[in-house]
């Protein structure tokens, strides 16, 4: 598993180089997200324009991807984000990365800009740059088919962009297969700027395993631990939609931008989906949990439409945030964003904001190309707005540069309602009542984002004796509490950094069940598969190194410090209007939030302004970065 190579590709010159990854580098950064962050910090020159030839696009497989690992399918795509100017990084499942590894590579470092559209063809140790003029303009479902037909191999896996990426929409995503998308931070926009339509991979090479018998036996044990659980059996049927009803009932769902924290219309329940539209579920590579839905709309306006998804997040971004209560519109909108290659999280957030402005009378039909953005009308306008954004047409062109820039352009106090952190659109939950969630979103290295740390188990009310065993320190069972929650976020950040670097799916970690694997289990798996002996403490140090490097990148590129680590003002002043007793009338206490920040920075070894301390850099061996080891 340690013998995959890095491919360096210059799109400007067409030059390709290959190099192996020294074990010493693996011991510092593992693979996937961790190694991508090292490559980003080292290969991107400070201040490079995200849409210029100086940006570096990284495609990485995790250290354990393709192995006998629960959910070992993940691909990590990184660059400097054109949306935020900070760490751009997105992570997706599917079948791409395993195939990349079978083709002999773990990481692709893609530099420069091509004059005309191209795609990369990666096959058993070789990388070829091919003309993609005929693919430019094709959607993300047509593109892989065309490439497979052209190369005569139906098992080629493709990562590609759609219209949004080609048109340089700042929150364009990258897509692979019928289902998977790397949505956040606009990596599709970076591909579009490089005129890189796709990366196609196919491989037949062996991936060696250090201790095959032990690896298989331990894999079996992990599978049983996960798949024999009640959580897994539910997840196998409902997928991530499982989280929708509890979140809504609790009152931590973000509705009408930030107008409500619970849906007053209950049309969007997972049950309705399963009954009316689901065709059963499928799995990503190496996953026994199979949480991906297949669906079909039988009749009506969208009759005959067939796709994969939706996730819990689909329902939030294209449902409650924009106050769309029609399941069929959610599915049709998801199908559309998939085809045109838009990040649905960012798209939902920005459309929810535009509708909020319209309903408050801040913008009107003269701004919106005559579209009526009344909340009651969202099912009618959602798909129209998504198309306009992807094609940069009329009002869509205003939104296509992201919420921060759109607010600047619109003015009229619209920025007060623009929900983002560091330029990345707000998550689909309303975290005003839950300080742990709020801290994670506020401090995340890629902007408002839950997947850097979300401690979903904090909502379970686990007793302190239990959390002490789970994390090694007690965490208050009260999700309204501020105390002990900085520690929890720090812990989860390290775990998810590790998980993203190994190429493992978060749904097979303590993200969704406290009995699922974490550091200890991964330490063993790494040993059986690679022979690298890395203790739990060593893994935490590696994760801390990677996370602090991300913070350092943000500081280097944009001077990110404490001032940037807050949620929008509304979260500290406006109480939640509905919910249960623990979530109604809640807003964040700024003084207590500041105390959390102090503790959080100290845990990372950053100063009170959120800047990594010189001694921390020495301890983490980051003081000589960029070190250009690879």
């Amino acid at each position, binding site marked *: 598993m340690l013998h995959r190579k890095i491919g360096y590709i210059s799109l400007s010159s067409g030059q390709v180089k290959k190099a192996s990854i020294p074990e010493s580098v693996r011991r510092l950064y593992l693979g996937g997200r961790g190694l991508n962050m090292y490559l980003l910090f080292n290969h991107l020159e400070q201040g490079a324009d995200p849409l210029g030839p100086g940006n570096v696009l990284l495609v990485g497989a995790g250290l354990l991807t*393709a*192995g*006998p690992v629960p959910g070992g399918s993940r691909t990590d795509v990184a660059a400097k984000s054109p949306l935020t100017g900070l760490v751009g990084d997105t992570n997706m499942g599917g*079948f791409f990365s395993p195939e990349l590894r*079978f083709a002999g590579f773990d990481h692709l470092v893609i530099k420069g800009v091509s004059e005309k559209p191209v795609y990369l063809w990666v096959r058993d140790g070789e990388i070829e740059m091919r003309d993609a003029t005929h693919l430019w303009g094709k959607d993300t*479902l047509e593109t*892989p*088919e065309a490439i497979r037909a052209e190369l005569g191999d*139906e*098992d080629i896996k493709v990562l590609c962009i759609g219209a949004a990426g080609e048109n340089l929409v700042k929150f364009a995503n990258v897509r692979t*297969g*019928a289902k998977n998308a790397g949505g956040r931070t606009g990596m599709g926009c970076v591909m579009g700027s490089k005129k890189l339509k796709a990366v196609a991979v196919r491989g*037949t*090479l*062996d*991936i*060696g*395993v250090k201790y*095959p018998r032990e*690896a*298989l036996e331990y*894999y*079996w044990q992990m*599978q049983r631990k996960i*798949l024999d659980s009640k959580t897994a059996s539910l997840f196998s049927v409902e997928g991530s939609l499982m989280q929708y009803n509890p979140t809504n009932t609790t009152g931590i769902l973000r509705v009408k931008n930030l107008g409500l924290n619970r849906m007053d219309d209950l049309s969007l329940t997972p049950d309705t989906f399963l009954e009316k539209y689901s065709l059963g*579920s*499928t*799995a*990503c*590579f*190496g*996953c*026994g949990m*199979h949480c991906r839905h*297949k669906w079909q709309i039988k009749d009506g306006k969208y009759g005959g439409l*067939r796709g*994969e998804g939706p996730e819990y997040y689909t329902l939030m971004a294209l449902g409650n945030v924009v106050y769309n209560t029609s399941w069929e519109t959610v599915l049709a909108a998801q199908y559309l964003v998939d085809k045109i290659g838009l990040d649905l999280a960012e798209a939902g957030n920005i459309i929810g904001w535009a509708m909020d402005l319209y309903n408050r009378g801040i913008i009107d039909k003269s701004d919106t190309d005559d579209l009526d953005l009344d909340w009651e009308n969202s099912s009618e306008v959602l798909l129209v707005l998504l198309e306009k954004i992807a094609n940069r047409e009329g009002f869509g062109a205003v939104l296509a540069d992201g919420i921060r820039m759109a607010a600047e352009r619109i003015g009229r106090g619209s920025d007060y309602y623009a929900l983002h952190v560091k330029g990345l659109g707000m998550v689909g939950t309303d975290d005003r009542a839950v300080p742990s969630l709020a801290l994670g979103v506020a401090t995340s290295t890629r902007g408002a984002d839950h997947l850097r740390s979300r401690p979903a188990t904090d909502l379970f009310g686990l007793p302190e004796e239990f959390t002490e065993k789970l994390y090694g320190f007690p965490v208050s069972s009260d999700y309204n509490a501020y105390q002990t929650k900085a520690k929890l976020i720090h812990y989860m950040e390290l775990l998810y950094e590790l998980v993203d670097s190994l190429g493992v799916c978060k749904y097979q970690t303590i993200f969704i069940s406290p009995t699922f694997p974490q550091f200890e289990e991964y330490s063993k798996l790494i040993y059986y598969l690679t022979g690298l002996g890395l203790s739990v403490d060593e893994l935490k140090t590696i994760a801390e190194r990677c996370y602090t490097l991300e913070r350092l990148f943000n500081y280097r590129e944009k001077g990110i410090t404490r001032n940037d680590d807050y949620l929008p003002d509304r979260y500290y002043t406006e109480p939640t209007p509905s919910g249960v007793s623990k979530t109604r009338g809640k807003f964040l206490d700024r003084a207590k939030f500041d105390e959390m920040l102090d503790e959080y920075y100290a845990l990372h070894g950053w100063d009170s302004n959120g800047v990594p301390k010189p001694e921390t850099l020495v301890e983490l061996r980051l003081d000589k970065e960029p070190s250009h080891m690879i």
Partner: protein
Amino acid sequence: MEKVILIDPEKCTGCRICEIVCSLTKEGVINPTRSRIQVVKVDPVSLSIPVVCQQCYDAPCIAVCPVGALSRHGTTGMVNHDRDLCIGCKSCAAVCPFGAIGIDTSAEKVFKCDLCGGEPTCVKFCETKALEFVEASTLSLRQKRKGISKYTELLQRDTGQSAA
């Protein structure tokens, strides 16, 4: 006792765990192209169909093998491949109607499923039971039960007993 790997494509989620564990068990590496079982996918409709040797009674591979490297095992019914006799001519791979015979280019031999000596690893790891290892003599009744489930559904619907 004769046992067979029974495949139910409707239960297959396309996870390809069978390919990982097969190649790891048989070759000590991870490589789907060296797995005895492979999941064939039709992407646009998310259809996944596992394909593995069916241990045919009238096996074309046995008939075509010029050196007698393929033969039927008397008691288990398994189509056995003798690597020592195999000359790597690939005739068996060409005539197999399922594509269940693979080619090991480095060893210059073909390979096929040997049911892991009676405990197929792929079956053990198949979470949805799309793969089952069943006695050949009971297979028919199993399939009958599966087949008539459609009638019982219809009956329930007609008599209004269904929850829906």
